[in-house]
């Protein structure tokens, strides 16, 4: 093993899977070996069984669907507004000077702390969930997109002008396409954060969703169900992450070259 030397793709997959194996093994030893009380930590087999019950008999699929819908809805809303604003801020410095200080402040406002306020304003319905995710992702997205767009190589900008580009086409044909792969990467990262916000929102006040199932299970001391819920969240996160990575490679083949 030497620093920064790459591994082969097959070794990479094998190593990645082996840690999952190690993780489940340690968990099994702790639970089947009787080192941890079943009340506090369910064993893997029990977790899978109750997961099946949840899905087959208790309509957990609908909860999963609700949670996914909330994350995607809130995140898309945030992304749709953050993209144009971020690009404009990155491209035009007066616009950046106008918004940047406030957004820098707003992004440190913890989204979860807005939940009580949002419940007062919007109740415990869907609007409140979407608002939490929106607050949690919008400001982060705007700032990061603005930085990426603002970091466009100046020599490319100059080359575009000497080729006759106008200001508008510079934004459209140089700033945006040049920043696109990094923007996609930002979206992937912030989507991960949005998952945290949705669960928090569902833990506090909801009548459906994965977070709601987890709070219900807590009252019943059903740690197997809680763990299953958490693992489902992890799996969905992993899947969306892989989807994003796949899409990035497909849409921006040039960005992966020479790396």
């Amino acid at each position: 093993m030497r620093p920064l030397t790459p591994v082969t793709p097959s070794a990479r997959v094998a190593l990645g899977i082996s840690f999952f194996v190690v993780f489940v093994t340690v968990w099994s030893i702790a639970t089947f070996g009787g080192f941890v009380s079943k009340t506090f930590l369910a064993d893997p087999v029990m977790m899978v069984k109750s997961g099946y019950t949840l899905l087959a008999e208790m309509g957990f699929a609908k909860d999963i669907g609700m949670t996914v819908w909330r994350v995607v809805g809130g995140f898309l809303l945030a992304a749709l507004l953050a993209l144009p604003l971020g690009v404009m801020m990155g491209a035009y410095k007066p616009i950046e000077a106008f918004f940047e200080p406030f957004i820098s402040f707003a992004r440190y406002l913890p989204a979860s702390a807005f939940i009580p306020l949002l419940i007062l304003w919007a109740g415990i319905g869907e609007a409140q969930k979407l608002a939490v995710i929106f607050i949690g992702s919008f400001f982060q997205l705007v700032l990061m997109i603005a930085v990426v767009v603002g970091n466009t190589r100046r020599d490319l900008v100059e080359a575009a002008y000497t080729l006759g580009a106008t200001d508008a086409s510079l934004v459209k044909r140089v700033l945006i396409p040049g920043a696109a792969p990094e923007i996609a990467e930002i979206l992937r990262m912030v989507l991960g954060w949005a998952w945290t916000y949705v669960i928090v929102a569902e833990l506090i006040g909801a009548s459906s969703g994965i977070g709601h199932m987890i709070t219900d299970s807590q009252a019943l001391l059903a740690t197997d169900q809680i763990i299953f819920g958490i693992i489902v969240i992890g799996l969905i996160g992993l899947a969306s992450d892989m989807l994003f990575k796949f899409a990035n490679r497909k849409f921006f083949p040039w960005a992966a070259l020479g790396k």
Partner: protein
Amino acid sequence: MNILSVRGVSRTFSSEGRAPTVALQATDLDVAENDFITILGPSGCGKSTLLRIVAGLDQQSSGEVLLDGKRITGPGPDRGMVFQSYTLFPWLTVLENVCFGLRERNLPRAEQLDIANAFIQKVGLRGFESHFPKQLSGGMQQRTALARALANNPRMLLMDEPFGALDHQTRELMQELLLGIWEAERKTVLFVTHDIDEAVFMGSRVMVMSARPGRIKLDRAVPMPHPRSYSVKTTPTFMDIKAELTEQVRMEVIAAQRANG
């Protein structure tokens, strides 16, 4: 007939808390149609600054630059530029890079492709149309950049040490390629370099610039007929001019080193 007139152009960089630096003294330069002018000088002498002012990418502190009698106020497609750094758009293929300026002019797609393919052929990149810049060598990237600038059919071609980052052998081939294109297309070229061989081989006139603050201290015509092949580099005329310019540049490099302490 002069195509470009540089009249009393100077450039002073001022930064807060420090004495302003004069990068370029008031400079006059007239460029005739079909001239190939090479600007030679030690690094930091203001030769790139002069070129960038002509390109409209930098603003002069005094004087004016006229292209076909009209004052230059900013960059435009009438002055194609090839930079020292690799400035192909990494998200576009070779073909799309060459089409960039044509698309900006809203030419019909078929016409864009005709023009782009013709220039890709001229710089010898046939078969590489769908490659991305990162898949090309440095020399191929600069050839694409040349094709991209030429495709716009500019009045002038401005080149800022375009072969500076290439290895010696590639650079010599690029010089022949550019000279061949210039001989065929009869473009007007302003070419900045610190390589004396390069300046003499390609230039119809060589301007030698002084150490900072820069000014043109020598305007040397190169009386060698075209087309020139690489073999002219061993002729007595070439050797004489090279010896003369080497002496001139050397004085300036020494002066520049003294000034920097």
